[in-house]
């Protein structure tokens, strides 16, 4: 009897803990881990939506996907988009942050204005961009024509479609980068700038490299990773403005997954591409976590 009485209070917290954590764990399993497992499983089958019972096909889907020229092209398109958006948004964000840092008045106003594109829904903003870029009555072409400059059908031209989408991407992400850089710049001790001026580095460029750059480097790395993740995940503008065209010029990874899964109903191909995509974003996510931890420690 006495043994049981002693044991009871020790064992009680366990069921109560499970009871409390259970619903959340179940939801997590059902809504987050479940679909993920399902997708990964589907990637190893020949299952197609509405088709017959799936068969296990091993790595066939992966082999086919890697050999597929369209898929290879879409990886390349995504990479090109990322390589345009990330440096653009990073440098513009840093530049804006440094300008605002030096501003005496109106800092909050400008900060808000530059941050607006980021919080505005990109899907909704795409409509505005579509109107701006309309080949005949869009202000962009009308303006160019008025100045006697060549006009273009920006979203229908293979040479301009992806750069234009990248420009919209930069417009969207610059505010995001700027906010992080502003926070980082405020943490640079003014004393260091003073010391640099006395030590003989009076010029802005020298002082940027001696004082500012080392201070904001961890944040810059963090912003770089997050921007890359954002760019790799581009979808809204492509789906709404170009549908991956003209040709395959703007067919980015996420759009391929969307088409395979929801237009062609080749669920297994979509699942395989998703696994590939997940690997990229997971890597970036882990990099971000590690950088975040290091930035926090410094």
């Amino acid at each position, binding site marked *: 009897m006495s043994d049981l009485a002693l044991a009871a209070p020790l064992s009680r917290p366990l069921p109560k803990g499970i009871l409390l954590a259970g619903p959340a764990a179940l939801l997590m399993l059902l809504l987050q881990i479940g679909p993920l497992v399902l997708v990964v499983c589907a990637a190893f089958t020949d299952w197609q939506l509405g088709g017959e019972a799936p068969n296990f096909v091993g790595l066939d889907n992966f082999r086919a996907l890697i050999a597929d020229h369209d898929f290879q092209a879409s990886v390349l398109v995504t990479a090109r988009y990322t390589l345009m958006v990330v440096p653009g948004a990073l440098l513009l964000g840093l530049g804006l942050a440094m300008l605002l840092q030096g501003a005496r008045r109106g800092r909050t106003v400008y900060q808000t204005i530059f941050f607006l594109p980021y919080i505005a829904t990109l899907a909704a903003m795409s409509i505005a961009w579509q109107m701006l870029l309309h080949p005949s009555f869009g202000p962009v072409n009308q303006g160019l024509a008025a100045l006697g400059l060549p006009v273009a059908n920006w979203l229908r031209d293979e040479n301009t479609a992806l750069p234009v989408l990248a420009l919209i991407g930069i417009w969207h992400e610059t505010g995001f980068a700027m906010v992080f850089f502003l926070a980082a710049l405020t943490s640079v001790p003014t004393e*260091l700038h*003073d*010391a640099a*001026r*006395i*030590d*003989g580095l*009076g010029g802005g460029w020298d002082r940027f490299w001696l*004082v500012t750059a080392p201070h904001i480097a961890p944040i810059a790395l963090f912003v770089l990773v997050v921007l890359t993740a954002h760019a790799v995940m581009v979808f809204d503008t492509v789906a709404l403005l170009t549908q991956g065209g003209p040709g395959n010029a703007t067919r980015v990874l996420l759009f391929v997954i969307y088409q395979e899964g929801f237009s062609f109903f080749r669920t297994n191909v979509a699942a395989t591409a998703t696994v590939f995509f997940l690997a990229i974003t997971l890597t970036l996510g882990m990099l971000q976590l590690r950088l975040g931890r290091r930035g926090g420690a410094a």
Partner: protein
Amino acid sequence: MTQLSIGQLSKRFGAVDVLRDISLDVRPGEFVSLLGPSGCGKSTLLRILSGLEQADTGSIRLGVRELTGVAPSERDIAMVFQNFALYPQMTVRENIALPLRVRRLSRWRRMLRLGGAVAADIDAEVAAMARTLEIEPLLDRKPAALSGGQRQRVALGRALIRQSSLLLMDEPLSSLDARLRLQTRDEISQIQRQFGITTVFVTHDQAEAMAISDRIAVMLGGRIAQFAAPEEIYRAPASLAVAEFIGTTRLNRFETRVDQGGFLRLGPHALHRVAPELAGQDVTLAWRPEAFRLSGDGLPVLVRRLESHGADSFLHGECLGQPLVARLEPGPGLTAGETVRLEPRPEATLLFDAAGQSRPHAPAMALAHV
């Protein structure tokens, strides 16, 4: 060793006069402290000397050179900052070498790390400085791996390596803990003498200023209220404001009037004769707590409370309806509630006119009862 002359310097920030007509001559090799409460303009004055800030009017001469309008790096000055301002990404060696590298090597040679014979010279100078400051074992560490006192030495090293004519220090001890502050204070004093560099040191800590300075400029409300040796500032404050600012305990103040005969009176007591031109004027008498001694015919003081500090004790009492604090040597036991007689030493009596300016007064004359 170089002389520093500041002439009629003024500075406004918006509607606020931060510095008003500051003139100061610092002798070659002298250690001068700018002492004052926060907001008195002492840091602004230092920043103007460094060139980080510009004065509205006035001149600064270092030796024979006029510094107004000269860039901070061209002024032949060095500065030690409150939080040391070491470059965190550089080692101690690189921090100390930086002012020399910037001056002696072009940007490209610095970036490509091509220094040649010049770099070898710089290395030797850094090594010598590290020996002097006893920081040789730290040369390859980063600032983050140093203690507060070590960072202070590195900051000093970076300031002294250029052998500038003037060393400016902005509260360099305030970010150290109490014990380290005392030790570092002595080290700074010793190093300053060793290098013989003319030094201006900003602090709000009077004990620090007293201990380390050849002369102290007390700054109050953007003006220099007094510029004198520490001992003189304590013994003969130029104004009531200086007297109240200097000293660890409250000043005992009595407002009174000089009678027509030129006698200083305090209640029914005539103290002594003062300058005839003060006859009939309102004045303020002030004594520091240590100005009193127990005496049969002093001022009557009602003892409220006694506080023993070991070597001496503080009497908190009441004299002529006003609170009074006296520091006495531990002697015959006093008790709260009794009335004792305390006589102020005439040479420790401070006298100020209605404008708060110090006035000389005739020496020793016994307290007389009228």
